[in-house]
């Protein structure tokens, strides 16, 4: 049994907003006194329908006529050097809560008031903080309270339970209260004017029991006409514009039906077939297969891309938002790289936890494919995002060198699927090796398709070559150029299947999808030397079919070796590697989202908010 700390505080209960009659004051006060196991000398002043009573040591008193009930309660607390709880509504806090709240009075001499949070309804959800005249019936899931900082320091908040610290009690102008001009809000505004701030204890939750809409702002109407009305509005504006209230609004919408809301921002996917689309579609597939009962998934994507990739048919269980997120989520995973400032801001506004998927750093490295503010956007992401997803350790290393992330950054290497089963069905039909050398890439310079094709056409002048991603007109009769981007998966697969050797000459890669696709088909694959390929070997069991080159002569040697009859006759790439499936990726992403939630850092969120949204 908890006992109230002897003589440390008095209690003022304002029942005027309730159905309580004057006759009910005394029984309520006695019931409350018993519940709180009030100590000797501790007072409860209760007010209802302009009647008030003071209960102390089992005896009842009336406040003097010269002073209002609240003013008198403060006078009494001032005299005894006590703090004063001001409770609104016919509800009964626990003694432990009040003691815990009162104990916070000592954290700072200029903390004048302390407030708990208020659990409402049967679910135990917590009422969202409200400012000024704005009352809110919104709630935040109790499970999300750990995301809030332990304490908020705020301007005055008109709440159902406020503890006025002993120091602050002495600062209250009871003279004005005695004139009858004072209101509870006057009292709080007055304290703030004297240098006292309010402390909200986010870990202390009162079982309020009344509707969420009555927790905050029940005295707003009284402020009108008060001398401090304008000042009260200024305090409310401060609170309204604060990061904490913004976060609370976000959190209040970040769960639905008991499930956390996860936004998969797929706006980096355009209506073409490319590496980004492949990665995103694979992730979506993996997440759709993952065991994620705790999450409700929403995909945000451009309408054209959604239609092009038939997302709604492929993934009917997801929710969809088009063009930009308009709702709030707990976690937003941008399944492609930080790209534009407005996307970063939209992501930040949509969820308290955001993470990006780093494919590679080539756009930043090369500059020309990048928007002008990519450097700033990426650095902001590295400084303020909550998490980074990488396609490979190679990609992670590249990113970290260029954009050192903050110490609390959650990072995960997901890879993409390397499972042959998810790329192609091995051995279902004989391979038709009729296209000779297939050079894979796209029109971007770092893919080096055109140059490599010319070299191979020179080095292997009697071999047919398909140059995929080469947008030049064909001039060499041995070379067939195929622009990338708008071929179906089946067409690309056909090209891969018909190749004798696949050359992927890219200078910069985060994963190298064509190489993995080729290996999954049992093809010989020749790639430019990068640390990435050691990872791919481990993930594919490439069985010696993945060859690297640095110089032109090594390219020729590697392709020549792959074209040797013995090499062509060798079996498919082995399955000895540690293959990753899309389900693995999906499960990893869900676990990553859970991990992000468990490590939410309010200060980092606030820093991000200040950095990217405040002028």
């Amino acid at each position: 049994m908890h006992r109230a700390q002897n003589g440390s505080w008095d209690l003022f209960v304002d029942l005027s907003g309730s159905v309580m009659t004057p006759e009910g004051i005394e029984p309520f006060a006695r019931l409350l006194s018993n519940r709180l196991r009030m100590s000797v000398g501790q007072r409860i002043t209760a007010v209802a329908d302009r009647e008030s009573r003071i209960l102390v040591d089992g005896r009842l008193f009336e406040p003097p006529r010269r002073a209002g009930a609240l003013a008198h309660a403060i006078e009494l607390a001032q005299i005894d050097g006590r703090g004063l709880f001001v409770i609104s509504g016919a509800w009964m806090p626990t003694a432990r809560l009040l003691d815990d709240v009162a104990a916070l009075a000592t954290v700072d001499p200029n903390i004048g008031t302390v407030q708990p949070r208020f659990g409402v309804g049967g679910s135990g959800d917590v009422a969202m903080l409200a400012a000024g005249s704005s009352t809110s019936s919104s709630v935040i899931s109790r499970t999300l309270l750990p995301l809030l900082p332990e304490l908020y320091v705020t301007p005055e908040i008109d709440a159902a339970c406020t503890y006025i610290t002993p120091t602050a009690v002495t600062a209250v102008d009871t003279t004005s209260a005695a004139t009858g001009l004072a209101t509870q809000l006057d009292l709080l505004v007055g304290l703030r004017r004297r240098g006292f701030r309010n402390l909200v204890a986010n870990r202390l939750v009162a079982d309020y029991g009344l509707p969420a809409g009555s927790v905050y702002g029940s005295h707003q109407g009284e402020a009108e006409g008060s001398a401090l009305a304008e000042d009260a509005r200024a305090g409310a504006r401060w609170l309204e514009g604060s990061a904490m209230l913004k976060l609370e609004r976000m959190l209040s919408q970040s769960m639905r039906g008991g499930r956390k809301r996860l936004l998969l921002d797929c706006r980096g996917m355009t209506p073409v077939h490319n590496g980004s689309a492949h990665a995103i579609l694979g992730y979506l597939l993996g997440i759709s297969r993952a065991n994620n009962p705790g999450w409700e998934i929403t995909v945000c994507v451009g309408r054209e891309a959604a239609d092009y990739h038939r997302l709604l048919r492929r993934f009917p269980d997801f929710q969809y938002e088009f063009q930009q997120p308009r709702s709030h989520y707990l976690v937003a995973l941008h399944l492609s790289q930080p790209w534009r400032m407005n996307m970063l801001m939209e992501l930040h506004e949509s969820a308290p936890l955001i993470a990006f998927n780093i494919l590679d750093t080539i756009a930043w490295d090369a500059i020309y494919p990048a928007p002008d503010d990519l450097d700033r956007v990426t650095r902001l992401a590295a400084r303020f995002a909550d998490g980074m997803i990488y396609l490979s350790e190679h990609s992670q290393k590249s990113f970290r060198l260029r954009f050192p992330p903050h110490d609390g950054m959650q990072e995960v290497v997901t890879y993409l699927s390397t499972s042959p089963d998810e790329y192609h069905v091995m051995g279902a039909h004989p391979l038709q090796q009729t296209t000779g050398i297939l050079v894979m890439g796209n029109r971007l310079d770092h893919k080096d398709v055109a140059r490599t094709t010319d070299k191979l056409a020179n080095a292997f002048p009697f071999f047919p070559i398909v140059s995929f991603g080469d947008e030049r007109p064909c001039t060499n009769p041995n070379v067939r150029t195929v622009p990338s981007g708008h071929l179906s998966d089946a067409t690309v697969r056909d090209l891969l299947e018909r190749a004798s050797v696949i050359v992927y000459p890219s200078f910069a890669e985060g994963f190298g999808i064509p190489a993995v696709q080729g290996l999954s088909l049992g093809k010989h694959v020749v790639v430019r030397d990068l640390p990435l390929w050691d990872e791919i070997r481990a993930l594919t069991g490439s069985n010696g079919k993945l060859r690297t080159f640095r110089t032109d002569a090594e390219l020729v040697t590697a392709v020549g070796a792959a074209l040797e009859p013995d090499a062509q006759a060798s079996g498919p790439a082995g399955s000895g590697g540690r293959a990753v499936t899309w389900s693995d990726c999906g499960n990893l992403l869900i676990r990553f989202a859970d991990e992000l939630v468990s490590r939410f850092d309010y200060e980092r969120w606030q820093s991000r908010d200040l950095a990217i949204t405040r002028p």
Partner: protein
Amino acid sequence: MRPASERPGVIVIAHVPPWPASAGNEYRLARLIHWLEATDHDVHFVYRPFRAAPHTEDELCALAERFPRLYAVEDSGMSVTFVTDVAEADEAVATLSDQPVTDYERALPSDSLLAERVHDLTRSFAPDGLIDLVAALAKAIEPVAVIPMYIFMSRILPFVPTDTLRMIDLVDVFSTKVDKVERFGVSDSFAVSRHDEAYLMDRADVVIAIQEEEAEVVRALVPDRRVVTVGIDYPMLPVSPPAIDNRVLVVGSANPMNTVGLVSFIRYAWPIVRSAVPDAELCVVGSVGGALSGAESGVSVLGRVDDIDATYASAKVAINPAVAGTGVKVKTLEAIAHRRPIVMWPSGADGLPREVRAATSIATNWAEFAKLVIGHLQPSERASSEGAAADRHGPDLAEFLSADYVYRELAEALTTARSRRDGDP
């Protein structure tokens, strides 16, 4: 000075000098003239440098020492420097200086149907002054044959007396350039259409193809004309001593095909060779070396060498890195004649007799090319014995490279022409 009638004359017209021969077509010209001289013909060599390439007086003097009947044409045919020991020729050429140059365009109205570029080429190769000279010479010395080199000089032939055998030494079949050269990314400004090539060939009585496969192409182009195959003779040398170092030899002029081939070899194949044979050395002989700085690893750019025999003797293997080409590859013959293995692309063996072709190493890509070179530098036991066997076949190859074998069809054509002119049955 002597009269012209003692030995049958042949007028050979070319845009390159036959001596000193540093390019394949120059060597071909030199060997042809050598054979004509060896078979008792008075060769009148008309040298008209293409696009008036400059030559010094010393060069002309040196050329005149080698060729006693030399007519060097410059300034679009307006100026002729000549030396001849035939009185009629001397008089005919001397009188040209008193006459205005004839305008032959009016006499060749159908030439305007040629592609403009080809039409320009014919006028550059065979300007009006050159035609005046050849026509005057032919009239004066009554040669058994006039042999301009390349189709672009065929503009001369309509103005050669009809009792003279009008021939063209094609050297190249330019309408096959697109397939044989440009497809490999080597641009060739001399490529022509089949129609234009046939039109130009049709001016000759006898068309000389440099190899049998091209002769077949030519027969299809000008079915009414006699086509003879005349390759390049190359006397086989005695057995060479074995090379000591791992030296690889490339000999070539600075034509685009050689240049592209050499640069590609250095880029794609040579590092592979050097990786397997670290002390391998590539010796680059001829003007093709201008494509290199000489700072390339394991490469020595030697330029022109005085003793090509010794250079071949020092090499273990020769290469012809030109992937593209028409005609016959002198480099191939040269290496075989020096009893050195040669690694090359399939085109390097074009037109060679099957027996000669068998003595070469043919690659279809640079990786294979490098492997073949390595194989010759570090021959396995089996390969060594095969090489020895190939060496034993030397005498057979010598027959295929002999002048008697190479020029047999030309000899027959000239004999026939002489007989017809002399009224023999």
